[in-house]
């Protein structure tokens, strides 16, 4: 196996009093695309948020390129080369679309150029000077993804990025992920839209009640349909 980029061991996380993650274990190798599957509320979003330090209390171990990040402040974690695209998109109303795009500081070299991004999402170019939250739902989703492609982060945590997008854009996103993978990016994909994630991911984890309950590789996909039926109703 290639270099291990992310290793999570026995991760527990809380929102206030409520205990959401109960000992998550997972690892991601450099250049891999990994998808987290699960029902609503299984804890996939929380796992991503815990990695970047956005939950309340968390315990266990999160190693990024071998470096322990469990006690780090979020901004330090990001600077290890992580790009996070949140489920709720997190577009800023007081910034224009373009300012939103330019907001995250670079955390690594080799990020996409603005021209490339606009090539990929022409809507954004057209609405560049519009206030961020005046964009349509889908446009905001594009912006949220585009924003972290610019920063040069090599580990991307993408939460429900195909949500609310027209089929034509969803296709385009899938292509983008393939391109990124080809360029050697590492991606953790959280998707409700199984048909979107299925062909893209090298490996899958299935979550239930804040724990990883299954793990399998792309080639085992066929063999696991029954199980997925049970867990996800797919």
């Amino acid at each position: 196996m290639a270099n291990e980029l992310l290793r999570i061991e026995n991760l527990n996380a809380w929102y206030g009093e409520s205990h959401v993650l109960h000992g998550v274990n997972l690892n991601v190798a450099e250049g891999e695309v990994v998808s987290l599957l699960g029902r609503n509320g299984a804890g996939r979003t929380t796992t991503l948020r815990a990695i970047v330090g956005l939950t309340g209390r968390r315990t266990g171990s999160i190693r990024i390129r071998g470096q322990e990040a469990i006690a780090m402040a979020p901004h330090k974690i990001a600077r290890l080369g992580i790009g996070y695209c949140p489920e709720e998109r997190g577009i800023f109303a007081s910034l224009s679309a373009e300012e939103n795009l330019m907001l995250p500081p670079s955390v690594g070299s080799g990020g996409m150029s603005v021209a490339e991004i606009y090539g990929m999402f022409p809507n954004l170019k057209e609405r560049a000077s519009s206030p961020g939250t005046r964009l349509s739902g889908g446009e905001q989703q594009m912006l949220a993804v585009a924003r972290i492609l610019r920063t040069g982060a090599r580990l991307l945590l993408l939460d429900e990025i195909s949500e609310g997008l027209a089929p034509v854009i969803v296709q385009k996103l899938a292509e983008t992920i393939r391109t990124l993978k080809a360029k050697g990016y590492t991606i953790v994909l959280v998707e409700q839209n199984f048909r979107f994630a299925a062909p893209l991911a090298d490996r899958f984890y299935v979550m239930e009640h804040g724990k990883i309950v299954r793990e399998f590789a792309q080639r085992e996909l066929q063999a696991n349909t029954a199980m997925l039926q049970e867990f996800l109703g797919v």
Partner: protein
Amino acid sequence: MPGEIILETKGLTKEFKGFVAVNNVDLQVRRGDIHALIGPNGAGKTTFFNLLTKFLAPTRGTITYLGTDITHERPAQTARRGIVRSFQISAVFPHMTVLENVRAALQRNLGTSFHFWKPERSLYHLHDRAMQLLAEVDLQNFVDELTVNLPYGRKRALELATTMALEPDLMLLDEPTQGMGHEDVHRVTQLIKKVSAGRTILMVEHNMNVVSSIADRITVLQRGAVIADGPYAEVSRNPQVIEAYMGSADTELQGAH
């Protein structure tokens, strides 16, 4: 009577600082239909909804509901006419129980909502109806649960029950299955089908499985303007729609999800 035009817009237009988000839209919704509104991102679907529910004022054009011009009414007025909208994000009263959430909607038609001297007891007779509505969406076991504690899909179901409590003639649903797991998508789709009996539904939805399985009629918006309108089978073969919305890969409006 079914088939009658319940809602009609004529030349409806919304401009934002020179940017035309909704462009001269003529739309007719027939009583009893499930009418889907689709279109690429930024086509103006949400904006159009906002115009119908008065969260935005149109730049031009008129909205007629059952023959009455409602273009310049206030949001609450429109709601009282029976045009009720569910939100793209889940909208519930988190620290009220499931029952209280539905009762909140039932209470409105009682006309005692300004009666600050009446005891809460005067609302208890609404509980039967509330239970009935909750049963319709399979929430009868959660009646006394605080709403925050419900899982996402159930919250959407509750929202639907609450919306139905308002006895809407016309329900506006903005991406009702967004963010749901497959199970929930299926359940909510069936739910919509179920509650559509005797009502009219206008919905925005990107999930073509949902649209294809329940929509009677589809309108496609692009750049604020209507590019196609008609029954599913017809619209799904329209090359302009395929080009604008579907992308070239599939030749039919296949499920995006």
